[in-house]
């Protein structure tokens, strides 16, 4: 493993503890399988994807030292480079660059914040003319952002928010323009950029097929404002599956990923409406528990007062007091007979 500079110690992207985890998913496998010649895998990819690369000349670029060591152990024949893209100066360009995770995790906390545009330029400099680029790009207008609660902030979010990056093109047509290379295919990845289960070539698939795939793919999305399956199917029927895709994967050569329906998953998403119902139920339970608590408290206080009075009566001064009171009562009864 070579340390380039800007490598991050005490850090891992692959373990998923500091961020969303590496880009992964069986549906993506045909893409790295198409790699040829001198190949670079840039950024955190699930090793199951890297395993699919069959060329002999493999280079891996990763920013966490622990990840670099793990990759070096798993791929002893590969050249593992640990650090940021800004510090990577290979001797030769690459025939294939696999960057399905996107560009955000090619920089590190140690280095300067390059921005999406500059990072893209650096990456393109490493590609041979006519080479194969597999690039993932997150869509900030994607369904995953429109209908879910904002994700929790993680250790990976040390940079300014990516949406505010002025060098980042917004929308698929601007991304294609900025790339500057002929784009052979665009796949829309659902339901999330890091773990897609459906990869749709919307230019070639029928809307019905898209709707069917999305209905299944979006079943696993959680913490949603409304049922994602319905809205995704509606988007597909309106021909908007690409515009609302959580991420796009652009390829500069014609790599066909065969269409497949994601597996059926039995899952009930937590919609906000359900969360509200649950919250109201818990609030009701809490109110009842409080009322009970107050009632028990009052009862205890009453019992304690009664106990105190009884103890007082059992003592001598108390007895005298009570005895005197009783004697006085007897006198009164003789004086004023009950009648």
């Amino acid at each position, binding site marked *: 493993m070579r340390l380039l500079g800007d490598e991050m110690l*005490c850090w891992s992207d692959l373990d998923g503890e*500091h961020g969303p985890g590496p880009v992964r998913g069986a549906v993506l496998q045909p893409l790295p399988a198409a790699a040829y010649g001198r190949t670079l895998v840039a950024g955190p990819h699930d090793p199951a994807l890297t395993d699919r690369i069959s060329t002999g000349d493999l280079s891996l670029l990763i920013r966490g030292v622990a990840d670099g060591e793990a990759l070096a152990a798993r791929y002893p024949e590969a050249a593992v480079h640990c650090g940021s893209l800004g510090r990577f100066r290979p001797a030769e360009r690459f025939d294939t660059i696999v960057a399905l995770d996107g560009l955000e995790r090619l920089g590190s*906390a140690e280095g300067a*914040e390059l921005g999406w545009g500059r990072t893209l330029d650096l990456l393109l400099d490493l590609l041979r003319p006519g080479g194969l680029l597999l690039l993932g790009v997150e869509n900030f207008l994607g369904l995953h952002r429109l209908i879910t609660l904002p994700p929790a902030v993680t250790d990976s979010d040390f940079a300014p928010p990516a949406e505010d990056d002025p060098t980042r093109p917004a929308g698929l047509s601007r991304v294609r323009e900025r790339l500057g290379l002929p784009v052979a295919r665009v796949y829309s990845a659902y339901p999330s950029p890091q773990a897609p289960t459906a990869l749709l070539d919307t230019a070639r698939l029928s809307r019905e097929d898209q709707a069917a795939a999305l209905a299944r793919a979006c079943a696993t999305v959680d913490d949603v404002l409304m049922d994602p399956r319905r809205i995704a199917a509606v988007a597909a029927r309106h021909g908007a599956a690409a515009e609302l895709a959580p991420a796009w994967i652009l390829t500069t050569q014609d790599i066909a990923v065969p269409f497949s329906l994601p597996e059926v998953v039995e899952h009930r998403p937590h919609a906000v409406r359900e969360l509200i119902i649950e919250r109201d139920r818990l609030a009701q339970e809490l109110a009842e528990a409080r009322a009970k608590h107050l009632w028990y408290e009052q009862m205890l206080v009453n019992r304690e007062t009664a106990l105190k009075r009884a103890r007082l009566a059992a003592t001598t001064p108390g007895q005298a007091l009570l005895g005197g009171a009783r004697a006085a009562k007897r006198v009164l009864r003789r004086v004023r007979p009950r009648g």
Partner: protein
Amino acid sequence: MHHANHYYGHSSVLARYCGLEGDDPPRVHGYLQHGWNIGDGLAADHEFVPGTPVLLWSERTRRRAWSLGRRRTTVVGSPWAYLVRQDQDPDPGVRRDGTIWYPFHGWEGQHVVGDHDGLIDEIRATEPGPVTVCLYWQEFRSARLRRRYERAGFRVICHGYRGGWWENLDPQFLHRQLAELRRHRRVASNRLCSAVFYGALAGCEPAVYGDPMHLERENMTFGGTERIRRQWPELHGAAVDVPAAYEVAVAELGADRLLPPDELRTILGWENAR
């Protein structure tokens, strides 16, 4: 709040910058980074309350601190950078002379194991002009060590006590250091440390060379001297590219991110102090 906020008179420097009396600065609402750091900005061995606001010198340290799980991080810049900005050089034209050398030191808890004589030979061989050696108070106290450097023909000084646990506080520490640095043309050490960055910002030509020495029980979590050399190559060598080194010093000391006094007062929790 934390006793380390008063190290080297940092809190006093900030108080003066904010227009307060410097000798008894109010409590800082947070933990102020007290030295140049390749970790999350805090001292690995210090205890502090989780959720404490962490006040850091540089954007780079803030990014690193965030990636290590710290969330309440704010970049305020270093007290040194505020001092250099406030105390303009009274005689900028005065000819600086010689080198001020900071041999890498341990601190009260760890000791340095290494060859002082070897270092002395290397200093004599490398430095063209007169050499001032600045020792940490713990080493300055050792007459034997002082004499070794004096016998080599160096002028031996100390900037004062760092201060700790609210004892031996010295608000003038950094002022003395600044005055000394401004008298010298070069600043050097055998390890890249705060003093080298301070000197670079104060207009000295920085240099890092010689045996970096071995610190007892050194914390290697962030890669140690090997990583520092790899990550900050602009500051290493007997003669460096001065403008490039200056830019790095500006970034590491947050000199490009200094806050106006009102904003700093708010962040430090000093709005109500007079």
